[in-house]
């Protein structure tokens, strides 16, 4: 490794690609600092809310005996859904040999890691006794779907980290070699994480092998994580939950939300990191088409989820449907179903709306719809038990989240964005080294690294 300290960028980086994709690590803009500060403000609000919840108990929330799960759980489901995006890119699109989606793999893996961390933390926030968290391991009952969820979330967390890490290993070596003017802790970080990576063809070969194994492994695990999350609901008798459709319904909804968040992330990276050359209009076009496809699948499962019960109108199931279709939750329900699902499908069919800005706006609609959809899945179901709700305090009949719940939920988004921002800031967000290019040239000429 050559020690070069006082060279200009052009001398440090061996190609324009390296310069484009690595320079954001070395320079920090004011915009970035403001962004971090804003996120930290939200995080602090959430911490205040959580402090109050720890002190007084879950009584600070609007949850009560009937609505015993609230926006913490719907937010948890949302983050689990978002985390599936990693598998969409690293597995489905990769194994199908989609070249265009390669630059998006890293960001999807980063989002997946961040989302699954947030999901795991939120479920602890929802616990009445977080001090007893380790009872889950100590007194583990394998019969409980919560235990299945704990197992699969921890597994997926590890796999998500591995996916991100393994595909980034050559780039980490590059960071270690090129980024010589960064602070000492970063140098040390790159050196440790790079694992003596030296573009040795045998290293490349091994890496390719485990990359492929992982790409195949992540797929069933990703399906399992959201299917099991749906079983937290489907194993009960609540109207709207008591459905065999719930697994695919959740998984398809997750892929839709995942595609939407990638478009949003693409827009930010393109706008704020000057990477228009790498994330092109074509990417927005293709991602928008993918979003339409995934939304259509979700729409299909939505129709399946609601048509049967709405046709039969059996007991509380019928009450629940009435509440959603024409009752108290009707405005939110139709906004979510039309504004967050049907309308985006229609709009994205038009080519001009698949350009970066309109695609970004439509994807935000989809994401908002996805969040509130999970609210509609969790809360109204709990308000229609088999036995009538009587003789309880007025506050038990409704659910309007308190400021503590909103503060904690919003801060979970701040955390989510902070983790993404941190990872994007210290690592190249678009893969710098293309393994195929390397392998091809390497097998031809047996020459050393830096073929890009």
């Amino acid at each position, binding site marked *: 490794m050559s020690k070069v300290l006082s060279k200009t960028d052009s001398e440090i980086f061996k190609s324009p690609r390296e310069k484009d994709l690595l320079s954001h690590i070395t320079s920090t803009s004011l915009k970035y600092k403001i962004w971090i500060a804003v996120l930290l403000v939200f995080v602090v609000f959430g911490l205040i809310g959580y402090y109050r919840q720890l002190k007084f*108990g879950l009584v600070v929330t609007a949850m009560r005996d009937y609505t015993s799960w609230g926006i913490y759980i719907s937010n948890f489901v949302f983050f689990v859904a978002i985390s599936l995006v990693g598998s969409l890119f690293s597995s489905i699109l990769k194994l199908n040999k989609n070249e265009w989606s390669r630059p998006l793999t890293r960001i999807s893996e980063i989002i997946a890691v961040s989302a699954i961390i947030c999901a795991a933390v939120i479920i602890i926030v*929802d616990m009445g*006794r977080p001090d007893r968290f380790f009872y889950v391991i100590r*007194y*583990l009952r394998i019969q409980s779907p*919560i235990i299945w969820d*704990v197992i699969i979330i921890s597994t997926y967390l590890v796999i998500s980290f591995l996916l991100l890490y393994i595909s980034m290993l050559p780039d980490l070596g590059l960071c270690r070699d090129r980024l010589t003017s960064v602070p000492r802790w970063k140098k040390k970080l790159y050196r440790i994480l790079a694992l003596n990576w030296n573009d040795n063809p045998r290293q490349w070969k091994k890496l390719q092998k485990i990359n492929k194994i992982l790409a195949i492994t992540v797929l069933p695990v990703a399906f399992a994580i959201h299917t099991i999350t749906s079983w937290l609901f489907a194993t009960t008798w609540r109207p709207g939950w008591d459905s065999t459709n719930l697994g695919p319904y959740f998984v398809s909804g997750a892929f839709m939300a995942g595609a939407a968040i990638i478009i949003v992330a693409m827009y930010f990276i393109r706008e704020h990191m000057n990477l228009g050359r790498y994330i092109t209009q074509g990417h927005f076009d293709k991602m928008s088409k993918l979003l339409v496809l995934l939304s259509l699948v979700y729409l299909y499962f939505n129709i399946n989820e609601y048509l049967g019960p709405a046709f039969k109108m059996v007991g509380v199931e019928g009450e629940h449907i009435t509440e959603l279709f024409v009752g108290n939750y009707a405005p939110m329900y139709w906004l979510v179903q039309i504004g967050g699902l049907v309308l985006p499908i229609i709009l994205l069919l038009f080519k001009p709306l698949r350009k970066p800005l309109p695609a970004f706006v439509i994807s935000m609609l989809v994401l908002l719809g996805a969040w509130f959809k999970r609210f509609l899945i969790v809360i109204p179901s709990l308000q229609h*038990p088999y036995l009538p709700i*009587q003789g309880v305090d*007025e506050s038990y009949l409704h659910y309007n989240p308190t400021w503590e719940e909103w503060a904690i939920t919003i801060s979970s988004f701040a955390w989510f964005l902070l983790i993404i921002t941190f990872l994007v800031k210290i690592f190249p967000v678009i893969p710098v080294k293309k393994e195929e290019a390397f392998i091809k040239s390497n097998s031809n000429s047996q020459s050393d690294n830096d073929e890009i």
Partner: protein
Amino acid sequence: MENDTNQDSSRRKFLKNLSAGSMITLTGMACTSVSCKQNSGEKTTLMTTDGKLVQVSNSEIEAMEHQHHPATPAEAREGIPGKKFVMVVDLAKCKNAKKCVEACDHTHNLTPDRPYIKVLEMQDNEKSAPYWMPKKCFQCDNPPCVKVCPVGATYKRTDGIVLVDNERCIGCRFCMAACPYSARVFNWGEPPREDENIPYSPETSVPSKIGTVGKCDFCPDMLRQNKLPHCVTSCPNGVIYFGDEIDDTVTNGVETVRLSTLLKEKAGYRYMEELGTKPRVYYLPPVDRLFPFEKDTELNSES
């Protein structure tokens, strides 16, 4: 049972019951056993086996009071050997007196806004007559709440009772979502303080703990002493029958009948049998009612 007006013989009978150690129950729950002992000059109204009320000085009760310490969480996991407790609720007799709710709230130190027992106003359809339905935990034999508990904080005992261990509960509330009968309540905040510093027992459900779940427990601390749960003895109308399925016998404190006969003759049923939860609480349909259905608006805050 016949009614006797002879004071002497009733007194003799009462004393015999005392010596036989048979069922004598405190009614009115106004004083707990511990506080009764302290002011022994006072008198307490007691109910004898055949439902008569007699007044005796507290020093006499003391003789038959068992020194009973509540079961520890570990002990409470074992059911009472050889028993399968069962309850029958006669809907024809309930007039929403809510004495069961009061007695339960008192013994379990509950606030009135989230009782273990609810007396629900039910009407199966527009044409059918409304009736009162006392509802507690059904102690299901295929309990959805126990299935979903990740840590075994709620568990099924050999005697059929489903209990909650507040010292193990992590507060995930999955059991509340899983229970189709909304039988469970949660300690959202700090539960009301108790004066006495008694050790926690899942069999008494007191003192309950913040951030954990609670529900009707069939009062196993009473059952261990061969005494009926508080809701049974506090009911003025003999609505609730309680007993052992293996005995094939239930009693409401006044009359003792065979479970199989009662269910056969009065067409006993279990609420929402189709869910397959196999409840241990049976209902007798509200036919030939003892009381007209009267809605007291003060007692019921309808949703």
